[in-house]
């Protein structure tokens, strides 16, 4: 059935597996069950996927209702191609550990940078942590 050919509409994406990237950086994968005019989404059998380097881990989350304004992008997952990825799936604990390590490394690097700038008498204003665009 053609719903509004040529327009961007989520109706034809219903009941298909999607990957949704949220504004806070989370990646959700789930079956899109329902939408509304604001592109609020209902995701079913949702899994939150955390990527660190070449590894990823899935955390099963159940049903998600996502407010439309928080979605950065979403795309349908080709079920056939889903399995052939160079990425390696690991357990949840492991990926969370990896994530923590990565965050720490980032913080360290940031600290060094700020220190270096301070030494030279420069300062970069910190971005507002709420809106990370």
């Amino acid at each position: 059935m053609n719903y509004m050919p040529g327009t961007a509409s989520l109706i034809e994406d219903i009941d298909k597996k999607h990957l949704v990237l949220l504004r806070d950086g989370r990646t959700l994968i789930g079956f899109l069950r329902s939408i509304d005019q604001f592109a609020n989404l209902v995701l079913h059998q949702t899994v939150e996927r955390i990527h660190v380097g070449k590894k990823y881990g899935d955390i099963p989350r159940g049903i998600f209702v996502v407010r439309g304004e928080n979605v950065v992008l979403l795309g349908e997952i080709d079920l056939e191609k889903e399995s052939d990825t160079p990425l390696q799936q690991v357990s949840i604990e492991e990926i969370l550990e990896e994530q923590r390590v990565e965050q720490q490394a980032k913080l360290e690097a940031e600290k060094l940078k700020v220190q270096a700038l301070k030494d030279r008498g420069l300062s970069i204003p910190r971005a507002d942590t709420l809106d990370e665009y």
Partner: protein
Amino acid sequence: MFRYESLEDCPLDEDEDAFQGLGEEDEEIDQFNDDTFGSGAVDDDWQEAHERLAELEEKLPVTVNEQTGNGERDEIDLLGDHEENLAERLSKMVIENELEDPAIMRAVQTRPVLQSQPGSLNSSIWDGSEVLRRIRGPLLAQEMPAVSVLEYALPQRPPQGPEDDRDLSERALPRRSTSPIIGSPPVRAVPIGTPPKQMAVPSFNQQILCPKPVHVRPPMPPRYPAPYGERMSPNQLCNVPNSSLLGHPFPPSVPPVLSPLQRAQLLGGAQLQPGRMSPSQFARVPGFVGSPLAAMNPKLLQGRVGQMLPPAPGFRAFFSAPPPATPPPPQQHPPGPGPHLQNLRSQAPMFRPDTTHLHPQHRRLLHQRQQQNRNQHRNLNGAGDRGSHRSSHQDHLRKDPYANLMLQREKDWVSKIQMMQLQSTDPYLDDFYYQNYFEKLEKLSAAEEVQGDGPKKERTKLITPQVAKLEHAYKPVQFEGSLGKLTVSSVNNPRKMIDAVVTSRSEDDETKEKQVRDKRRKTLVIIEKTYSLLLDVEDYERRYLLSLEEERPALMDERKHKICSMYENLRGKLPGQERTSDDHFVQIMCIRKGKRMVARILPFLPTEQAVDVVLTTVRNLPFLIKKDAQDEVLPCLLSPFSLLLYHLPSVTVTGLLQQLMNLPQSAAAPAPSNPHLAAVLQNKFGLSLLLLVLSRGEDLQSSDHAAESTENSQWAEVMFMATRELLRIPQAALAKPVSTPTNLVSLFSRYVDRQKLNLLETKLQLVQGIR
């Protein structure tokens, strides 16, 4: 406040009668009033009362069967007549579907009896009526305190059986309890904002400029998806008055929705989408339309059968009753329902001819994409199992137990909202790039078709949707019987809040920089104004095509007038004075936008004026070149200049050349140096223009031998000077012209000898090989 120790203290001796009256009143007080003095006044916990009843229930299972058969009232007396007779009260109580007050159910639940109920906890909440039935028996036998809780029991949903295969979303929402005593808000059958479950007959409101999604009814699913040849747009359908539907009484007896089969029969094979019904809940709420649609459908459909179009695809066409038959909708109609739209595919000519919604190209693109996807899928699996992937995908969907949680009508509802958002009174204003892009595509494909002899694609005409711009005369709010009018300031009726007085500063106070800045700002403003004029003028062609015959002369006049204004803006019209300075124009040309604008305006100007512009540019070219150093936008002028050149006579070209090279008026006195020319030559635009002018001159000379000899001689003179200058200027870094005309060698060969010709060639790099 006044305390009397005894009656004697009361100062109102005169009012003994009153006191007696009081005494009489005392006597009149019903000492036997149960509620006040008797057992009714006993602060009996109703919960305990219920518990008592539960015990009785266990003892009287027999009475249950007797009571179940009793009359069932749909309606409950919400006002709750407080009758003394409990039995009467109970008999009035709603039995079957009405006991959903959670308070009641909680209480009812506390009894052990309820746990014997089949099913889950859920079912026990909703099965209160059975409990109640059982309660009634013992209650009748026993007097109970006023159980107001039970009095406003509400209709209950039918008990749920095993629900494995049931569509969960089919479950209707429970009715909200209302308390007549406390005064709960009016029962809204459906919370605000829920998508409708079923369709109501759209009570058509013509003034649907701001449709509210709440009131939007999703259309029926098209059982026969049709190709996208749809001429109708939902938008235009909205606007056709629909009073024949409105005026129709609402017989509740008609079933809300026609089955597809019925519809198919009605339509006789034509594909239609009758409007859908309101959610069942809406049907019960007064003010909302009931289920009249089905009754009306046959009428409409029969009326329409003769006018059926080939079915459109999943495009939810909105439509309404035939326009000629409809007077504007009556005002009494409840405004609440808002833009209820029916879906019926109908013939385009019935509606405004210049309306549609989406470009047919869209359909093609989408089809193509779908085809590609399908092909891809097929290819993935190889030739052997062509359909297997798709079928496996469909299998997947089939096996997916959670599929179709979102009902078709809900999908339609969403797409309907999206379509309504596309409504536009002026698509070229709202969606300019969209319209232009698809127009271009169409032209391309048309061109291709003309060239190639492939199979002719079906030409779907583009019909742009246009919602009528309904002019609302704003009338301020008036109340009946009130004195005077409200003075309320709203968006339609703005009121001046601040008294802002415009004061212009005197020129003396300002510093030089400020003056310069102001002048620049003024120039910017002029550019903006002229640009608007330009856009309008460019748009005239399209408007011309869309307009009627009578309007066209007026359009042309407007256009001419605008062109004149543009020119005046450019050159700086001084009141009552001749234009003596180029300053205004030069200022405009110093700004990048100004240059681009002039390039766009030039084709519209009459030749004289255009030449004037060119000459002015050329006169001030070195200055402009200097100013253009950063923007480098001057070359954009080349194209319109060259176009113009080809229309110019020899005289003009001669003059132009003179100006361009800053040649002295007479050949006798050679100027010491020619920085003007040097600057021109070093600039891409300048050099290109020069070459173009030369080339044009040459063309004129060679082509028109019978030309006036004076012109010829003038040209020759100028050329001599030109060549002399060119030879004279040092071989500085020359710019690279946009294009080198081929006839320059022959041009120069006429005026200079061999040696100098070679010099010129090398200097100007006229020979291709040197580059």
